[in-house]
């Protein structure tokens, strides 16, 4: 038994060291690009597109379920977007609250007949409304079918060649769409998806779709999520995007080529991770067609979202994310280690399996052995000590490094005190936040065997005034 735990300890130590090094390797890959664009005047680089008739028109889809608190401010923020040609489609997925009523009242909407093209089958559409103040705002009232189904209904109703999916609780910066469309326009359509960087809005002051003051929240749970975002976005997504093997475009904000998405079959209704699943399916389509088209992530923050402030909501969010990841990897298991899918099959899929999905299992075993080693002589205390140090290295020091790297590259938080607070909170990660995440992520793996996909249950306060 002793030998078993000893070997297990070595495996966990090796895993954590390997993962940490892979994080560092990925960061250094992305560092050049972020640093290169650090001083670029974003306003100057996009202002030409504002008056340009050669931009592609975009349909903005806002799937909403029980979003009466945030939906109107989200749509208002979309009205303020600087973009030459756009339409806004809110899809009320059978909300039980007054999501539709709020929209109809605020934007003076009337019911219209509409010849919808059914590219993708969805749950029944009950009615379609159009604003009489802003005719390019429409509302679909449909039977409940989940977020993926709502997005598919939005795709069916949309008129333009690109669509942008944005969560009902998120606020897009005025030039966010322009910044996100820029790579698509400049590549003449060779980039088929762009994922915008999502930032946590709690603690910042957002007014009329503009971030007035960037600040930090007081709640440590939200602070830790900010640090987590740094770790995920700066260390993971940028490098994967650079290699054209990025598997996740945040559900909160992304722009997609509609034709390609329809070709791929739209959003999958049978997974809670519909955003990742679609991106993997698009990669699969591109590789099977041997297409040179790309999926890209832009590091500049363009979308602000409200992070959960309570452990209960955070728990349900993380269980959902982990479940979505598992479902996606499982449904595309054919791509795993398959040379036909190039770097996606040989690198990206195994990376997401071993680092993102199974990481929680290894970490859980690590905590178990540390505890057992120190208190029940499960392993030599010396080994438990090494494991403890590696856990701190993996859990805290890498996150603290992510904070420093953010400051080195994007430095979006303006005060020295912000940097200090983020850094020292990051150091505490391995002692309380990470164990919680590990437990929930493992619960997420088990949740795969639950059948029903549903919307997340987030308690909204609203993030914009």
């Amino acid at each position, binding site marked *: 038994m002793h030998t078993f735990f000893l070997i297990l300890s070595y495996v966990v130590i090796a895993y954590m060291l390997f993962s940490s090094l892979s994080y560092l390797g990925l960061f250094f890959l992305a560092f050049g690009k972020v640093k290169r*664009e650090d001083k670029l005047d974003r306003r100057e680089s996009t202002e030409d597109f504002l008056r340009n008739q050669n931009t592609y028109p975009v349909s903005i889809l806002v799937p909403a379920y029980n979003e009466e608190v945030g939906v109107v401010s989200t749509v208002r923020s979309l009205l303020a977007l600087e973009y030459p040609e756009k339409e806004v489609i809110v899809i009320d997925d059978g909300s039980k609250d007054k999501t539709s009523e709020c929209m109809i009242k605020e934007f003076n909407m009337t019911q219209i007949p509409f010849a919808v093209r059914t590219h993708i089958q969805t749950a029944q559409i009950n009615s379609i409304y159009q604003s009489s103040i802003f005719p390019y705002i429409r509302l679909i009232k449909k039977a409940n079918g989940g977020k993926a189904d709502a997005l598919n209904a939005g795709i069916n109703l949309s008129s333009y060649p690109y669509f942008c999916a944005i969560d009902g609780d998120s606020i897009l910066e005025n030039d966010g769409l322009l910044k996100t469309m820029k790579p698509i326009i400049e590549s003449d359509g060779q980039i088929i998806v762009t994922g915008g960087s999502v930032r946590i809005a709690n603690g910042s002051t957002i007014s009329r779709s503009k971030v007035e003051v960037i600040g930090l929240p007081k709640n440590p749970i939200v602070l830790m999520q900010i640090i987590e975002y740094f770790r995920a976005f700066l260390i993971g997504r940028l490098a994967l995007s650079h290699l054209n093997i990025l598997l996740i475009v945040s559900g909160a904000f992304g722009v997609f080529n509609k034709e390609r998405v329809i070709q791929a079959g739209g959003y999958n209704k049978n997974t809670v991770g519909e955003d990742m699943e679609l991106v993997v399916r698009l990669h699969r389509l591109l590789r099977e067609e041997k297409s040179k088209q790309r999926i890209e992530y832009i590091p500049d923050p363009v979308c602000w979202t409200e992070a959960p402030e309570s452990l209960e909501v955070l728990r349900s969010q993380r269980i959902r994310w982990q479940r979505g990841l598992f479902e996606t990897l499982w449904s595309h298991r054919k791509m795993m280690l398959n040379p036909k899918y190039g770097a996606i099959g040989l690198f990206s899929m195994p990376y997401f399996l071993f680092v993102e999905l199974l990481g929680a299992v290894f970490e859980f075993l690590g905590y178990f052995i540390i505890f057992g080693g120190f208190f029940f002589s499960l392993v030599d205390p010396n080994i438990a000590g090494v494991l403890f140090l590696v856990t701190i290295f993996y859990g805290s020091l890498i996150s603290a490094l992510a904070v420093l790297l953010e400051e080195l590259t994007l430095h979006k938080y303006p005060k020295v005190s912000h940097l200090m607070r983020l850094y020292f909170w990051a150091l505490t990660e391995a002692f309380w936040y990470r164990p919680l995440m590990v437990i929930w992520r493992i619960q997420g793996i088990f949740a795969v065997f639950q059948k029903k996909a549903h919307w997340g249950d987030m308690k909204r306060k609203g993030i914009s005034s």
Partner: protein
Amino acid sequence: MNIYAFWILNAILFLGQLILLLFLAWRKQKLTAKERTITEQYDALTDVFSSYMMDPSDERFIQEIHSASHKGVVLERLLNGYVSVTKGSVTSPLVAKLSEDFLTARYAKQLMRKSWAIRMNTLYFIEDFHMQSLTPLLKEKLRKTVRLDQETQQLIRTLASLNEPITISVLAQYPDAPVRLYIDVFKRLEEHSSLEELNAALSEETNNKALKHAAISYIGMAGLIAFLPRIEKELQTQDVEIRIQALKSIFHLQYISDPILLTPFFQSLSWQERMFASQIAGRLQLSRFKEVLSELLGDSVWWVRYSSAEALTQFSDGDILLTHLSAYHPDRFARDMATQWKSSLLGSEK
């Protein structure tokens, strides 16, 4: 397994991070203080700058900017603010003069910097401020480029804004030069140069399809009606892409010398041609095509159905036609489309 090695590893990493943290905190403090000074100087100079721009004989701004410790950055921000408000209007000679006097040396140096972002920003500002004095330097830079990367593209735009038609011939050296970049150049050139280049682009000798495509698109966007005969001539070409661009251009020009020219496009195999022909018939209210538009309402392509219904709304009796078609058109999809557009007309009457 030696626990001390791991202690040392963690301690080194932690200490390394602490040093980096202290450095970054110091850098942040310094940058914040610098930014504060720049903002103070900017605020202090805003009023005298506005007075100077309205009345250049008021020289207080010139005297005060000389004493500002960050005069380059402050002036850049003031001028940038000014041009972003007045964008699209005639180039201000005062902006050009101030930037030439105070920023030429700074920008010449910045164009040689290692930082890609700084070089890009400099190109944007040279374009915004119309700094003619830097043209030779930019042309030299363009001569040395071998790739049409983002920086070269901006370099071409900046030179075009300084009215350098050479940019078209440089672009033509790159076979994969995008249409939108040619359009950007046409947009920036002064009217006389632009018309000359458009003429050349449409001439028979041109083998550059992207250039021709761009010229046709730009003529429509800019509403250059004098080119209409040339555009109408392109409707006869064998190249379907060029024909579609020509139709699009006519749609934007809102004029066609002889509506008969449109007739073949309603039966075209290309749905884009059928769609644009419908749109033009609607925009120009060509009532002779009402019947064909009613037929196209039952087209197999959604966009053609959509455009033909939209076109019918443009006629004075469009509501009656659509009401009739929504009830009696033999095609179910056509009836749906007619219903949708009929109700949009009701909405507009409200």
